């Protein structure tokens, strides 16, 4: 299949010179490149038109600049927008060739050797274990009528669903990065849960081969039909290597009547070195639409990686009695920066939202919670509860809480609580006196601080995430 794609690309009429080993579009952002991507993905015409519409829009809009973390100007003409996954030749041959620090972290997380190899991008000859796992897994889903596949496959095989819902939550005109993604996205996941079906397992990008190589412009679309339920896991606790600096993914969720979507993320992209050099810009747009009555969307995120994390997983509570939740842990250490939070847009009657945010800042890092609770005039009896807690380690880091509230309805109830505290030296001393070293003690106390969010994660994720919390703060307390 891949071979065919490559062959085809070789003959691509725009005459891009490509060799089989490393096929990629030339640098730059223009119509030709978008056509190249669409062609290589064998997309129908409507999809290409959709992309081009986004691209045209992009030309007339500017990058936002209101966020707290500033970054050097990105030269969009100097990026590659498509490149095939690396061939075995360019990959490290074994873990011996991989940065020992990375391996050390994998070991601390208790990641099996086979997975370490995959994560570190080692060329593995043998068929990776998860291929067989993935197959049995797929059979189970098919039985229930669940669709779980790469979005590029869905565009070909399920065009009606994609046409109907893609861009229905994040319109292509939304904002700079969302529009950029719409023009150039390369891959991502597609999920459809049929009416009344409860997805029998946690869906995870992990089970999709090559998920780690979908690139910087990922696109995910999840649709939960009436009365269905799905829990989706994105990302991975292990630090992921990636050569792309900018990550601008779009994730859209749609929940119809009585449906529930639980979306959990653990983000641990390369944060840059101790002095703040390098690292990923994680500028992601995530939005869920509670379209039907009694529907529910719940976002849980553990953000520990990236040089800059800038994202607001949001819920549009359109259906009456719908519920939106946002549980977040954002950890910044060294020179990392985060500006994250959520938007809860209450449109329907009796809609409820809950926001629990835990920000932890260490080193020279800066951590902002920014959130909007917007209660429309028709949202009778809407309720929101927001709790934002910040924990500071040392005195060179920052924490900020920026809650916006727009309330156009007098029958609504809005509660907001916020705390900022320093890590308690006496608590650390108590832990030390019980034989725990500084890192273990910090890990324990911070995990306690984050408990309400951690317990939202599915079991298998929670255990790893707890370890990750400790590891992310290594060296933060003298």
């Amino acid at each position: 299949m891949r071979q065919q794609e490559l062959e085809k690309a070789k003959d691509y009429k725009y005459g891009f010179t490509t060799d089989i080993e490393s096929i990629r579009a030339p640098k730059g952002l223009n119509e030709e490149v978008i056509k190249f991507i669409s062609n290589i993905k064998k997309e129908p015409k409507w999809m290409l038109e959709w992309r081009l519409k986004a691209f045209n829009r992009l030309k007339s809009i500017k990058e936002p600049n209101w966020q707290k973390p500033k970054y050097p100007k990105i030269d969009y003409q100097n990026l590659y927008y498509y490149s095939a996954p690396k061939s075995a030749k360019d990959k490290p041959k074994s873990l011996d060739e991989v940065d020992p620090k990375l391996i050390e972290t994998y070991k601390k997380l208790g990641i099996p050797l086979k997975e370490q190899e995959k994560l570190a991008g080692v060329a593995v000859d043998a068929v990776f274990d998860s291929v067989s796992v993935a197959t049995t897994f797929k059979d189970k889903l098919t039985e229930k009528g669940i669709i779980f596949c790469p979005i590029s496959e869905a565009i070909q095989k399920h065009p009606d669903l994609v046409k109907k819902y893609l861009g229905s939550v994040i319109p292509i005109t939304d904002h700079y990065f969302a529009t950029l993604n719409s023009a150039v996205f390369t891959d991502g996941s597609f999920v459809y849960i049929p009416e009344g079906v409860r997805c029998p397992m946690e869906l995870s990008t992990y089970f999709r081969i090559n998920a780690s190589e979908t690139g910087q412009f990922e696109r995910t679309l999840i649709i939960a039909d009436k009365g269905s339920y799905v829990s989706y896991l994105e990302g991975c606790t292990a630090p992921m290597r990636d050569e792309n600096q900018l990550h601008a993914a779009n994730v859209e969720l749609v929940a119809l009547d009585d449906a529930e979507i639980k979306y959990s993320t653990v983000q641990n992209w390369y944060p840059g070195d101790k002095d703040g050099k390098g690292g990923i810009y994680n500028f992601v747009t995530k939005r869920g639409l509670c379209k039907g009555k009694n529907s529910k969307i719940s976002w849980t995120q553990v953000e520990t990686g990236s040089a800059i994390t800038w994202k607001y997983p949001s819920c549009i509570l359109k259906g009456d009695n719908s519920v939106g939740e946002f549980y977040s842990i954002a950890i910044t250490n060294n020179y990392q920066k985060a500006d994250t939070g959520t938007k809860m847009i209450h449109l329907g009657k009796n809609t409820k939202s809950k926001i629990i945010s835990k920000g932890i800042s260490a080193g020279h890092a800066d951590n902002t919670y920014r959130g909007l609770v917007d209660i429309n005039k028709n949202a009778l009896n809407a309720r929101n509860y927001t709790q934002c807690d910040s924990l500071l380690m040392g005195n060179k880091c920052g924490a900020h809480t920026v809650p916006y509230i727009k309330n156009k309805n007098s029958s609504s109830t809005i509660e907001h609580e916020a705390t900022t505290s320093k890590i308690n030296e006496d608590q650390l001393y108590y832990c030390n006196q019980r034989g725990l070293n500084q890192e273990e003690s910090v890990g324990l106390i911070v995990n306690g601080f984050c408990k309400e969010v951690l317990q939202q994660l599915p079991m298998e994720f929670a255990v790893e995430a707890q370890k990750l919390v400790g590891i992310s703060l290594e060296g933060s307390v003298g």
Partner: protein
Amino acid sequence: MLEIKNLKASINERSILKGLNLHIKPGELHAIMGPNGSGKSTLANVLSGKKGYEITGEINFEGESLKAVSVEERAQKGIFLAFQYPLEIPGVNTNNFLKTSLNSILKAKGKKELDTLSFLKLVKEKSSELGIDEKILSRQLNVGFSGGEKKKNEILQMKILDPNLSILDETDSGLDIDALKIIAKGVNSSRDDKKSFLVITHYQRLLEYIKPDFVHVLSDGKIVRTGCGELAEELEKTGYKKIN
């Protein structure tokens, strides 16, 4: 076991311990009494290695100087401090804390760490031995514990971690008579010819249940008198005035 020579400690330019000498042999139980503010908790903190003090003099534990030894290493070597005011750590499950603690200590000693099942078995055994309701262990560490529950929890931790030197800082203060007996049981059931205790208390009451080998009076940063059990009885009657 523990040898303290001419120990002086100050904090924030305030001198608190002013030349303290103490020798505890394996298997001995020493009680320290003394007026409020005389430096008893400071002594306990300094022995545990708490940072922030300016220290001169010598502290030797099992023949080794503790000068450059960190708080956690001292704990791993077998020094345990039952705090006068145990800390609350929200969100941290008490059982989980204790297990992490025990395993760090076992690991440092080169012993095999306990899995969850054997740990829970140990906890059950020790808590029923002391008559402590193990339900408190599934709660967040010390959060919302009553004063007495906090103290009992400290003693349970002591039993489970099985230290060589236990320092009890007013573990008997504020306890009802049943809780006091639990504390005494915790100490007495651990006593043998190897384990030593330093028990800080204001009340002779506790010393009726746990018989000290020596009683010291700490006053203004120094040990001003040393005696045996009767000294505590005498202090109970006369107070500290006569001693100074």
